[in-house]
């Protein structure tokens, strides 16, 4: 009975709006007036042909999977380095973890000082080496790359500490036994370290993927979806559709789709990774 307060909160502020949203996604509600008409699956059909939405869907996948992939590589490398005997490794770990605690909005503002056109610190370097100023954010591909970069570096600390915790839980004797049997360094990594890191990897991939697919704040402050609509994620596009174009019904349909996508992707990934788990 003690969990009733929690269940009431979930019901009222998560599941009720979720169902309400599903209902709204079949209407043409504008978000302000009392009137709304049932339009069937029209909003969902419109999603399939809306090139701005399809672009946002593509970007969401890039942000989600791109960041997750890079974060695993960087996080694992950092964890392996910091797991060895190294002077000042606690300070290094603290610095790499630090950006996680800063709001994405502030992180975006800080990076903006670097990549701004007229006075940005990055362009100062370009000029110093005899190059030209570059309008970093006016090219879609570069802008997407910058967003992936910032998000990856801000949150790679999560993967790092998860892999570190995983590495520290592997008993030293596994390595000793394998070395006596004549295993090479790479074999040790491939046969012992990597398989035993699967649990850490499941957690790390899940956290990063959910975070990446939800990406909103950093896009808002860096590009606000531009140039044009080309760097929107589904999240920022929902916001635009609801508050700027006043199509609440259509925005709800995207919301339902985004939630379903995150649910399905996370489930599939967890099943895939869990089936490869090993025990020694």
């Amino acid at each position, binding site marked *: 009975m003690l*969990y009733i*307060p*929690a269940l009431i*909160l*979930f019901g*009222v*502020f*998560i599941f009720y*709006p*979720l169902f*309400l*949203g599903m209902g709204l996604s079949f209407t043409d509600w504008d*978000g302000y007036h009392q009137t709304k008409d049932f339009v069937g699956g029209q909003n969902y059909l419109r999603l399939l042909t809306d090139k701005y939405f399809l672009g946002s869907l593509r970007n969401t996948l890039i942000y989600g999977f791109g960041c997750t992939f890079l974060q695993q590589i960087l996080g694992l*490398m*950092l964890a392996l380095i910091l797991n060895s005997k*190294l002077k000042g490794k606690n300070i*290094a*770990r*603290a610095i*790499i*973890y*630090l*950006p996680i*605690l*800063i*709001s*994405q*909005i*502030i*992180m975006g*503002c*800080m990076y903006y*000082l*670097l990549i701004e056109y007229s006075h*940005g610190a990055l362009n*100062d370097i370009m000029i110093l080496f005899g190059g030209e100023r570059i309008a970093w954010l006016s090219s879609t591909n570069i802008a997407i790359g910058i967003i992936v970069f910032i998000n990856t570096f801000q949150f790679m600390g*999560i993967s790092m*500490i*998860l892999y570190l*915790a995983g590495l520290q839980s592997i008993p030293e004797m596994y390595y000793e036994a394998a070395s006596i049997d004549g295993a090479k*360094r790479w074999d040790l990594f491939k046969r012992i370290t990597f398989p035993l890191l699967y*649990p850490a990897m499941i957690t790390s991939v899940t956290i990063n993927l*959910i975070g990446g*697919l*939800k990406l*909103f704040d950093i896009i*808002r*402050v860096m590009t606000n979806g531009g140039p044009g609509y080309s760097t929107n994620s*589904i*999240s920022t596009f*929902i*916001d635009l559709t*609801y508050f700027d174009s006043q199509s*609440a019904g259509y925005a*709800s349909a995207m*919301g*339902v789709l*985004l*939630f379903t996508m995150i*649910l399905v992707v996370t489930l599939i990934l967890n099943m895939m990774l869990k089936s490869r788990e090993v025990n020694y």
Partner: protein
Amino acid sequence: MDKFWKKFGVAFLFVAIIIQLTPFYITLTTSVKAKIDLSSRWRIPSSIYWENFKVAIERGLILNAIKNSLIVTSVSVLFICIVGALAAYPLARNKSKLNMIILMITVVVMMVPPLSILVPLYAMMNKIGGVNEYWGLILLMITLQLPLSIFLYRNFITTVPVELEEAARIDGANNIQIFFKIIMPLLKPVTTSVIIITGTFIWNEYVLSLYMLPSRSMRTLTPTIASFFTAHSTNMGAASAASLMGMVPIVILYLFLQKYFIKGAVEGAIKG
């Protein structure tokens, strides 16, 4: 070969650290330079210009925003701890089918992106008068962070031996008494983690805070900085000063409680 990898590792670490610190460094130098100072942001200024901080406080209402964020964060975190621990207790002690379903529901709540429920949520909050009131945002923050709190408490309580409670039950204590007199006092270490993880999240939250507390005097920190930044795009000094003031509370806490932050994050991640 080993020597090469060691050198490569150190170099890699060094580059990663430089990348992580650069934005902070640039923000710091920009915040203490006057608008007319057009020297590169890489350069340390010859004299420190404090006016930017004054502008951020007076025109950006940064201190007022910090107050709003403190209210929302502290009240939310208090309830997240109480409601979360209460819910976790039966889930840890009794692994019935119903309890497993409740745990599943909790996992699903974690996956709901705020943007996908924003439309109906905003309309609903508008109807019940929760927009522009602290309690509206506080209720949402509690709800969104409860799952994490429930998992952390549940995992911790599972490791507490049942014998203590059984002894109390023989002495005639009921469930509520057992929870408050026996379980609660044991939860201190995990409560630190819950406070740190959920507190940081709420302090930094943007989109719901933006729409639930839209008026200028009620705005929390993150939306305030975002709007100040857009409005003062010609005065990056003041915008940097605002950003710095916004992160100072968390960074100071982190410097003193670093080991709890990192411990908490590992516990929070390895769930159920």
